[in-house]
């Protein structure tokens, strides 16, 4: 075996994919050839280092959450026809409760269902590249885009100076209403800001939730319902919420 021939078999040899006869020929040649021995050593050293566990990346938690949320959503959609009776049964159950606690319980259940929808909308927007219908960092492009599509004018602002650039806008649905989705980005994290006219009067202070690994903040002010959701950490999301509230 010549040095050039060895070079063609070297990878197979080191990978354990070379037949026995040729493997022995490789070894026999290497025994008498310093140069080829050095080459084989180099290849083995490279492989050993590459195979170290520290070379691999681990999936971030929020990706796992996204994947699970997507799967659950698909699974639910698949069997939803079986569970059409569920809301009815739920309503019947509610009727069995006394009126005082019934009112309190119902509003809590509504808020919980709404949070689920917000999460679903967020997850769905991240899939299939459907984050925005209008892509622009210019609020003077995004805001008028909603005109004629919604019967209210959503507040659209860009916070690029504060580190939360506007990315685009999208129409979405929550709780049966058409809502505006205004998308911001913080480093690698997309943030959906949902806003729509509130039913009922009064304001409510911001509340935090975590669902499926996402952080959510919602409040009511200026006659609008506001929800922000992202896999971004709670502290940085709160900064955006504060920017949105200060007008």
């Amino acid at each position, binding site marked *: 075996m010549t*040095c*050039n021939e060895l*070079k*063609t078999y*070297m*990878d*197979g040899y080191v*990978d354990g*994919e070379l037949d026995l006869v040729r493997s022995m020929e490789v070894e026999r040649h290497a025994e008498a050839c310093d*140069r080829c021995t*050095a*080459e084989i*050593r*180099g*290849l083995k*050293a*490279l*492989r*050993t*280092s*590459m*195979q170290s566990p*520290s*070379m*691999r*990346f*681990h*999936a*971030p938690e929020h*990706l*796992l959450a*996204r*994947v*699970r949320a*997507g*799967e659950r959503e*698909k*699974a*639910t959609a*698949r*069997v939803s026809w*079986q569970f059409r009776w569920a809301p009815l049964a739920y309503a019947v159950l509610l009727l069995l409760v006394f009126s005082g606690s019934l009112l309190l319980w119902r509003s809590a259940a509504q808020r919980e269902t709404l949070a689920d929808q917000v999460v679903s909308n967020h997850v769905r927007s*991240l*899939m*299939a*590249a459907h984050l925005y219908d209008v892509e622009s960092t210019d609020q003077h492009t995004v805001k008028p885009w909603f005109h004629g599509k919604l019967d209210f004018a959503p507040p659209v602002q860009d916070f690029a100076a504060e580190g939360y650039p506007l990315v685009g806008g999208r129409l979405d649905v929550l709780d049966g209403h058409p809502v505006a989705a205004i998308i911001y980005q913080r480093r*690698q994290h997309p943030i959906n800001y949902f806003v729509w006219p509130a039913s009922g009067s009064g304001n409510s202070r911001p509340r935090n939730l975590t669902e499926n690994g996402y952080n959510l903040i919602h409040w009511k002010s200026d006659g609008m319902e506001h929800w922000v959701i992202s896999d971004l950490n709670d502290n940085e999301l709160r900064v955006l919420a504060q920017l949105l509230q200060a007008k």
Partner: protein
Amino acid sequence: MFGVGRSNERFEATVVQHMDAAYNLALWLARNEWDAEDVVQDAALRAFRFLDRFDGRDARAWFLTIVRNSFYSWLRKRNPGLREESLDLEVHDVASDAPAPDLEMLRNLTRQQLWDAMGELSVEIREALVLREFEGLSYREIADLASVPIGTVMSRLSRGRRQLQQSLGKLHGKGASR
């Protein structure tokens, strides 16, 4: 939920179980976290949709095949004029005047150094190296996964390792500016 219990289990076993491998492959291929996550998310969706086509044997290989295909779909969407790498086996012959391997550098290799050097390789070669060194797949398994002949796999690995050593030597070897 009733009725989806079994498919949920299968999803966990095929997709969730191999999320690290999936993300690792996607990241070394796509070269940034944001895109890698998109690729994995897309692959997970497809896996769920085609779960009943999975024959129950090698879940990791099955899911990694989907991840890899999702990556190339994503790549083609971004670069519509992309052509598959041509295989000029003659052109990329081993340089006989290449310097001897820097064993010390290779033995103390950091992930950042490897990352930099891998960036100079084509996606197909990176793919072969990731599947071989990170996933420990055989030549046959890599060939099946990538739908190419075994000879192509061998060629990619061989060239990839030469190019890596050259890049590493250039970027971090003796005499190179660190």
